[in-house]
């Protein structure tokens, strides 16, 4: 069965306050480009209070530079319930997802010093930690990470670096662009990230021709790239 997926309507406003520098911009874009969001359901609020005034970036800096436990706790309250949801969707039961979430957040604490805001946004970096943890624990495999100081690595040409990273750095803008995707494209992105399935399997289960799955994913990524170019 192809699970039907919809974007939770309260998710964007909950997530917004995390990067105050971009809130105004994102809110403007939200007014113009998106249907008005519903207020958060009462249950979600105590679960995941977004770190209010401080941004995720400054929380990360406080953790890396001062080993700030309060900053870590705030990051935890925001990200842990989301990582756990992700891990449960990708096949872990509640207990194992909780355990993996705790381990992933500990990794965030230990490796905070290696977080590089020029390379990835905070949520992207934390996502990759949770993804790798899942592969490690559920599949007993290891995600083949790229090593930046690998002698074999072919470095970026200096000119392309800015444009290539534009999308990476701006999580808030990316969320807005994601919310504006046509539903059939957004659904496939959700399936690709939140189901433990390759695109071939997704095509089988949705009864879609494989070519259609591929072209929708390609269109979605192309559109996100263009949306972010327009912003810049």
């Amino acid at each position, binding site marked *: 069965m192809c699970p039907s997926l919809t974007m939770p309507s309260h998710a964007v406003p909950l997530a917004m306050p995390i990067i105050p520098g971009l809130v105004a911009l994102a809110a403007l874009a939200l007014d113009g480009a998106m249907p008005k969001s519903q207020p958060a359901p009462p249950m979600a609020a105590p679960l995941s209070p977004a770190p209010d005034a401080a941004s995720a970036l400054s929380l990360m800096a406080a953790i890396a530079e001062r080993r700030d436990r309060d900053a870590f706790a705030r990051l935890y309250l925001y990200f842990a319930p989301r990582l756990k949801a992700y891990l449960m969707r990708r096949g872990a039961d509640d207990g194992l997802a909780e355990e993996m979430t705790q381990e992933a957040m500990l990794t965030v604490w230990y490796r905070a010093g290696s977080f590089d805001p020029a390379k990835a946004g905070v949520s992207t970096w934390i996502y990759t930690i949770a993804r790798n943890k899942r592969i490690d624990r559920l599949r007993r495999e290891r995600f083949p990470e790229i090593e930046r100081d690998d002698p074999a*690595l072919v470095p970026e040409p200096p000119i392309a670096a800015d444009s290539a990273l534009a999308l990476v750095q701006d999580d808030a803008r990316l969320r807005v662009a994601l919310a504006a995707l046509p539903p059939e494209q957004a659904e496939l992105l959700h399936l690709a990230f939140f189901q433990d399935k390759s695109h071939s399997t997704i095509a089988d289960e949705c009864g879609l021709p494989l070519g259609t799955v591929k072209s929708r994913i390609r269109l979605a990524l192309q559109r996100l790239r263009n949306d972010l170019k327009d912003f810049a």
Partner: protein
Amino acid sequence: MPSFHPSQTLLMDYAAGSLGEASAVLIATHVSLCPECRAEAARIEAVGGALIETIEPVPLAHDGMAAVLRKLDERPDAPAPIPSFDAETQRLVPAPLRRHLGGNLEDIRWRSLGAVRQIDLAVTQAGGHARLLRLKGGAKVPRHSHDGLEMIIVLAGGFSDQSGHYLRGDVAVAGSDITHAPVADAGEDCICFAVVDGSIKLSGPLGRLVNLFVRT
């Protein structure tokens, strides 16, 4: 810069953590050698990061955070020691694949199989296998097909078949409907990493999964 790249859907499966380990290692090897695909993979990971923020949160165990906070002062497990490799191996084999090599390229005990020398690598792959291949310069591989989808990435030298001329970093993909007779370029040995993955399917009648990037 490589000319033959994995498709966006393969990069997506890689960034989403949905590929088998051997296929993921092959894509990561290409991504190490191709700044464009590295940027694309980073963009797709950023989509993953944004989706994490839009997901419906689930309740945590009530004592979960307290347990984590108590562990903050513990020392994390030391990372596994990284085996050292000679300069040639480090130059030719990107780190994601090097970790599975078990030794330097020149110490590999190749098995001869006609024109091809090969060695199986201990990388997990459900329903498939991962091999390192080595062809002498100018060697001709007899016409053959594959059980399932075969992905090959060139690490050194180059080879040609009817679908193209593949050099370092290039990814060639052939389905079971393809028969080909690759010929190694004259000169240095052609060294490739090859993965057969039964879980990936092809879509088009051409049976090609790679596409030449159309740049905007």
